[in-house]
């Protein structure tokens, strides 16, 4: 009747954590209504009626001597002992719990002993509370509410991150090799969260990194813009000049205007823009000499929507 239908072995881990994290002292009723051994059974009945409880621990000081339950009271009534003291009518061998035990113990005890309540003792064997199935159910529901709220807050956020359109912006500065690659690293992280195929992430990272390095190496600085949509990523690299004299040449593999210093760092091999073109599904470049360059490329993030064979 007082069994709590909660499996303490293989429930979901959230529930298990809850019943192991919660201590009996967090759940029990601390304001215990007690009586003494020479209190009459009638007096105890009054307490139960007034307090709407079904069991009263019998104490001497704060030491637990026994308990009078509804059943004890009924049998006293049946035997005409209602005016007698609790001393001979109480249950003596009381099963108790300790306040520092996890809640799972109380649930197991309810199951095992079929009592509706257990007095709770502290480490010094002093009565400090009482725990009923009602206390347990109330606290579990409260705790589950808190936990569910927490879990619910997690779900919509990750969902939005997974599918929703996201825009990201990064500034690039001339010869700022210190921060070169930051935009690409960030974008790669964001794409990983969206669980996009590794190979496609790599193509996007290649395009992004080359465009970023181009701005650092060749431009007066610029901006990298990323539009993450449900089925594609668009990268727009717009710089503040100086513009490309001959766009066709710039797109030729091996052609580079980089100086020796830049080449010594491993850049300027004339592979940047050709690499971007190779990994992109759509590619566009516009440059006005003396003004600036805008390169945009689009990569589909879902293979079935890919146009053409790349890589």
């Amino acid at each position, binding site marked *: 009747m007082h069994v709590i239908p909660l499996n303490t072995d293989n429930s979901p881990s959230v529930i298990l954590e809850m019943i192991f994290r919660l201590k009996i002292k967090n759940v029990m009723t601390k304001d215990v209504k007690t009586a003494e051994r020479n209190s009459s059974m009638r007096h105890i009945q009054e307490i139960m009626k007034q307090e709407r409880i079904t069991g009263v621990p019998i104490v001497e000081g704060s030491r637990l001597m026994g308990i009078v339950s509804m059943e004890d009271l009924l049998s006293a009534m049946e035997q005409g002992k209602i005016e007698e003291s609790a001393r001979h009518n109480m249950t003596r061998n009381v099963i108790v719990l300790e306040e520092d035990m996890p809640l799972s113990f109380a649930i197991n005890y309810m199951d095992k002993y079929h009592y509706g309540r257990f007095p709770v003792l502290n480490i010094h064997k002093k009565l400090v509370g009482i725990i009923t199935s009602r206390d347990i159910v109330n606290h579990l529901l409260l705790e589950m509410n808190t936990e569910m709220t927490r879990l619910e807050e997690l779900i919509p956020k990750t969902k939005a991150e997974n599918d929703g359109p996201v825009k990201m912006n990064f500034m690039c500065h001339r010869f700022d*090799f210190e921060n070169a*690659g930051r935009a690409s*690293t960030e974008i790669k992280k964001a794409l990983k969260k969206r669980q996009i195929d590794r190979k496609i992430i*790599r193509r996007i990272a*290649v395009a992004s990194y080359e465009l970023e390095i181009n701005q650092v190496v060749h431009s007066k600085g610029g901006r990298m813009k990323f539009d993450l949509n449900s089925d594609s990523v668009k990268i727009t690299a717009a710089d503040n000049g100086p513009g490309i004299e001959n766009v066709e040449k710039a797109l030729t593999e091996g052609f580079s205007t980089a100086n020796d210093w830049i080449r010594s*760092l*491993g*850049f300027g091999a004339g*592979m940047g823009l050709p*690499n971007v073109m190779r990994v992109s599904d759509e590619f566009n470049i516009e440059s006005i000499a003396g003004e600036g360059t805008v390169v945009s490329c689009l990569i589909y993030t879902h293979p079935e929507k890919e146009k053409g064979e790349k890589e």
Partner: protein
Amino acid sequence: MKVKDLSDKLGYECLVSESNNEEISEGYCSDLLSDVMGNAPEDSVLITIQAHKNTVAVASLAGIKAILICNNRPAPEGMLSSATDEEISVFRTKDNQFTASWKVHAHLA
């Protein structure tokens, strides 16, 4: 082979050990970062003389697990700290890229 085999089996000096327990199945030898970016296989060790922060950025973006610096080139602190952040191990040897490449190749499955 495991990343840590670069020092365990080949005796190369380990400067960052962040990815030492990862498996590498290929190697790539290049000093042109665009070439690395475009062509290096994933889960590989990059054998190079480019010892700076951008090598780490490229390795991370290309899915490279370890960097082996050749000719005992000095590795700046900034490179090592960003390798730690990106969880990429860094090793160094006095071997040149050619020698290092065939030594590593002998240990790849």
